[in-house]
């Protein structure tokens, strides 16, 4: 422990020597009554020594007394910048960062300006970020907790990345992300050829819990013989595999719970059997097209006894999904019919193309939450889907309903008589046009368990007069469920699904806007 400056007062010297502060109880009573509490004989601190920690009785530093391990944990929860900054807080804190597990998140270190088109600035940002990462790695002894840098570094500066990953500061790394989040730059650039990541990437295979690999190639030689005994969350974005290597990779993760597959090349069809998988997200993105490589467009879940969520992350090209056995599947979406070749979904005997139910023999009663989006969504479509998932409780309509009138009284009379609608929550975008009124009132008047209907309205309609008017138009006084509430909101986030990182796959409901 280093020598404290004479101005460091109160019981700090004793604290550090003993390792624990004296009993709080006595100190609390003393502080309340007497004024500055000092167990040492030294005079109270000079006025300029405390940046706010002045001579008042109640102003006792209670955090610095925590053991190193706990302070280290707190610091490792901070963003990279803040964590490094704790070194200058006070003498007690000077070495906490160095002793805590290292977290380097490139996004924390410098915010890349949005819509970056200034090449000079782009280069400067990346150069500076690379410098900063190198400096931090050379300053910190390790161990490493998390390391996140942009994926294009694998292509732009592979030797540097190799050096970083080999550094002792990243020893026992738990989370490795080649990932950039929302601010990916140079979107419209031609995709560069993918190459295998440096071998040092797999140095942490024994300790990794979360990993995102993007913009690289993983042939058989890269993944052979590697095991990830603790990897629970794996994200693969814009990665090229060989026919067998994707399967090998997934099989080498015995405790995998979340799997994110976005723009996977080199494999046409993936079969998955996993006892631990809980959540899977699959998608394709128009901006990552590679004409010379086969795109993953078929996922077959053969046996996944723990699978709870199957999510579609975006369908430039459809990713057909077949689920043979997933008895706990609860959350599905966002189904869409964006692409010309409609996405094909097969759940046992249920066959859905885009949003149209083509055939249905046995229903899937485990599904409780469903999200749908389409340029031409209507009530008939939704009712057909409800027939497939009779126990549906939450329904998210992620596009505006318009066009068809959605008249239902005569058309769906039989359905209303024969089926019990279990829906509890419905969220839709609303303007008050006739087709939407008919759609919404179908549920308000027939869903006897309904608890909440959330209507997302624009700012012009966000006023009491509109709400009152709609209350009448939607015939709320005749609602089937007395407990049903109408909730208007002007927070119109049009994201269909809130999944940016594989970590988000563990969120129970990715369709809720949490901002």
């Amino acid at each position: 422990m280093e020598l404290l400056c004479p101005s460091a007062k109160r019981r700090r010297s004793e604290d550090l020597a003993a390792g624990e502060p004296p009993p709080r109880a006595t100190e609390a009573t003393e502080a309340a009554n007497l004024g500055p509490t000092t167990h040492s004989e030294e005079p109270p601190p000079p006025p300029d020594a405390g940046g706010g920690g002045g001579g008042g009785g109640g102003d006792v530093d209670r955090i610095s007394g925590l053991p190193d391990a706990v302070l280290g944990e707190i610091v490792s929860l901070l963003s990279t910048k803040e964590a490094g900054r704790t070194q200058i807080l006070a003498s007690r804190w000077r070495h906490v960062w160095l002793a805590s597990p290292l977290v380097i998140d490139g996004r924390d270190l410098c915010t890349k300006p949005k819509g970056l088109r200034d090449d000079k600035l782009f280069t400067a940002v990346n150069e500076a970020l690379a410098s900063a990462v190198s400096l931090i790695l050379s300053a910190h002894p390790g161990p490493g907790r998390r390391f996140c840098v942009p994926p294009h570094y694998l292509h732009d500066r592979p030797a540097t990345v190799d050096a970083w990953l080999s550094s002792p500061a990243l020893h026992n790394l738990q989370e490795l992300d080649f990932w950039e989040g929302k601010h990916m730059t140079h979107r419209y650039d031609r995709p560069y050829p993918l190459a295998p990541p440096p071998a040092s990437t797999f140095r942490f295979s024994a300790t990794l819990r979360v990993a995102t690999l993007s913009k690289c190639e993983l042939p058989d030689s890269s993944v052979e013989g590697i095991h990830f005994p603790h990897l629970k969350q794996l994200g693969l974005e814009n990665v090229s595999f060989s026919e067998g290597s994707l399967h090998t990779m997934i099989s080498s993760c015995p405790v995998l719970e979340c799997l994110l597959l976005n723009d996977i090349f080199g494999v046409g069809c993936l079969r998955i059997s996993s006892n631990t998988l809980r959540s899977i997200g699959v998608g394709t993105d128009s901006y990552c097209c590679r004409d010379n490589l086969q795109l993953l467009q078929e996922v077959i879940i053969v046996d996944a006894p723990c699978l709870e969520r199957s999510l579609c992350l975006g369908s430039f090209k459809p990713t057909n999904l077949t689920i043979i056995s997933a008895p706990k599947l609860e959350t599905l979406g966002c189904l869409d019919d964006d692409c010309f070749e409609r996405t094909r979904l097969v759940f046992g005997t249920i066959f859905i193309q885009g949003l149209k139910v083509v055939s249905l023999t046995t229903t899937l009663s485990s599904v409780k939450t469903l999200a749908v989006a389409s340029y031409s969504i209507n009530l008939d479509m939704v009712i057909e889907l409800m027939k497939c998932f009779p126990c549906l409780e939450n329904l998210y309509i992620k596009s505006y309903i318009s066009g068809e009138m959605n008249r239902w009284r005569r058309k769906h009379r039989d359905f209303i008589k024969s089926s019990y609608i279990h829906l509890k929550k419905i969220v839709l975008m609303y303007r008050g046009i006739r087709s939407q009124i008919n759609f919404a009132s179908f549920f308000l008047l027939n869903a006897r368990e309904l608890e909440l209907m959330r209507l997302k309205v624009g700012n012009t309609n966000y006023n009491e007069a509109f709400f009152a008017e709609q209350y009448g138009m939607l015939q709320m006084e005749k609602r089937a469920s007395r407990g049903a509430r109408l909730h208007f909101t002007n927070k119109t986030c049009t994201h269909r699904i809130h999944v940016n990182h594989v970590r988000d796959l563990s969120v129970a409901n990715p369709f809720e806007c949490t901002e």
Partner: protein
Amino acid sequence: MSESELAVIKPEALKTYIWLQCFDGSIQQVEEEVAMFCPMICREIVKNGTGSSKNHAIALPERVNPASLSLILDYCRFHQVTGRSNKERKSFDEKFVRIETEKLCELTSAADSLQLKPLVDLTSRALARIIEGKTPEEIRDIFHLPDDLTEEEKLEPLKNINDDPRIRLLNRLYAKKRKELQERHERQKLKDVQVQKEQKDERSLDELLCFINGDGGSGGRATKSKKKNKRRKDHAKNPPKADSEPLDANPDMQDDAEYPFEDADLDDGLDPAMKEELDREVEDFARRLNSVWNESHIGGNGPVQRFSGFNHR
């Protein structure tokens, strides 16, 4: 409560109670299943057999004061019940840590000495949230930390970073860009109202067209979530100023005192929600173009309608 009252056995005390003693001498009684939730207490009961009576109360570590103990027992009491959903537990946890910072620190300390890891994690996260985003002065103020480092010591960790030429170049470029945008912002403010109106008009026109064509839904900009950002529509912006200003070193370095990278709020002057909308519109448009392009390439199997521009059935 006097000691004799405590000793009276009430009907519901078919439950076993455990006795805990804080460092200051005060003794507390708690249901056994609640106390067992703490590993340290659990060990004492099982290994040493203490805690079963007042005279053999378990001596708790120094760092556990009565106030913290009472909070900890509340925590244990809630979480040891098995039937609760994750949502309930999370909700409880969120409310539980909404206490004064001082008490939070004491609670962390107490939980740590009782080896109650879930609570230590919870309180650590809460403390991290308090620290995040604040200047060192603010942090010292909140936690009453002594400002006992010399100026040299404060600059030392940052010295290497600030000396790096690439980082200095970046800061200079950021400063320049900020100036550009500042000027653009002034000009944009005047045009803002007009731009907003333009956006609205455009959208309703689009809807009208679709409506006329008899199809449902471009009324809503329903789009997918994207992790990547897109280019904005050009009409909403002025072109950036030419790169003619000289780079000057000194004024830009002033703000580097605390940390090298400044949060360059390189905003285009457009409201962020608007920006996202624009981005998505562009993406949508591109996607539609792509699908039309693909169809005409393949020779298309679908109905003829599909080939007509935006209409999407």
